[in-house]
């Protein structure tokens, strides 16, 4: 549904742009393609890597590692697994919900979800291409630390 809004917005503005200035519109599309083509190789590689990882790490496997009783070890495992890849929320939440049903703990799942979406070890090279080494590592390290803090508080709220 939201995707349609995004499409509507993009094509609406594109039409408006074309109406205003054809040359500029052609240039915008050229830039769009260039930016896409620039990141495509890494994207494709990451997609396959995530596919392999998700196939190996079944919900049963993960929840046996990050169960409600797993404590700090479970939190560390959840952070480690979550940090490896950057997974879109549309994949992450059904996975997280399945893990909760299989007996994973709330804190561990919150760490897992937050790190999945904010911390990406696999995508570090892509991020460094834009932000350099230092800013990239700082951002990911901070996101990791705060994911754990937020999860610990969240564990107290959600029972």
């Amino acid at each position, binding site marked *: 549904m939201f995707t349609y809004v995004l499409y509507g917005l993009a094509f609406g503005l594109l039409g408006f742009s074309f109406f205003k200035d054809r040359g500029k519109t052609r240039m915008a*599309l050229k830039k769009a393609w260039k930016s896409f083509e620039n990141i495509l190789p890494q994207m494709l590689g990451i997609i396959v890597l995530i596919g392999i990882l998700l196939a190996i790490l079944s919900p049963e496997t993960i929840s046996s590692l990050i169960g409600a009783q797993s404590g700090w070890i479970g939190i560390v495992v959840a952070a480690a697994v979550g940090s490896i890849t950057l997974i879109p*929320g549309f994949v992450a939440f*059904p996975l997280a919900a399945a893990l909760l049903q299989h007996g994973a703990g709330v804190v561990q799942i919150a760490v897992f979800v937050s790190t999945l979406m904010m911390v990406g070890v696999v995508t570090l090279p892509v991020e460094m291409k834009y932000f350099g080494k230092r800013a990239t590592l700082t*951002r990911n390290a901070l996101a990791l630390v705060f994911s754990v803090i937020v999860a610990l508080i969240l564990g107290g*709220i959600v029972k």
Partner: protein
Amino acid sequence: MKNLLKRYRFFLVMLLILAGVAVFDTALGLKATQMSWDNLLDLMAVVPPIFILLGLLDVWVPREVMIRLTGENSGFIGVALSFLLGSFAAGPLYAAFPVAGIMLKKGSKLSNIMVFIGAWSTTKIPLLLFEATAMGWTFMLGRLILNLPVILIIGFLVEKSMPKQDLAQIYQSAESF
């Protein structure tokens, strides 16, 4: 051709590993292929509008305007705008990096770009609805409220931790995007 091979090296290695997995364990290989394919379709569904908007942003919004709105002295407006821009996005975080690249090129403040990245990863509106359905409203709202200050703090700390010359270098390399 050789250049193309080099650029897609990582992807090709991943395909080889996938093939290896399939030879070793057919069911696992099929599952991994299915997951990759689903991932790809999900991504391709949201990628065209993002990159079209990125192209339009690059061509139509002059650097001066972008600097005024999200640059060094943009203050609250810059933070709020970066937040909104990220929250109205779709797709995984690595699709945000090219957009962030254009923001760098246009002179947005690094802390604001980090807020944009944070919003993209955590407070995307369609994702929040999805999260509430899958995990319950308490989980979603709790995580959202806790993460709002976190996103601002990360943005602030990343910028503050950067030495001047490193910062200058990031902006310089963004010229070529």
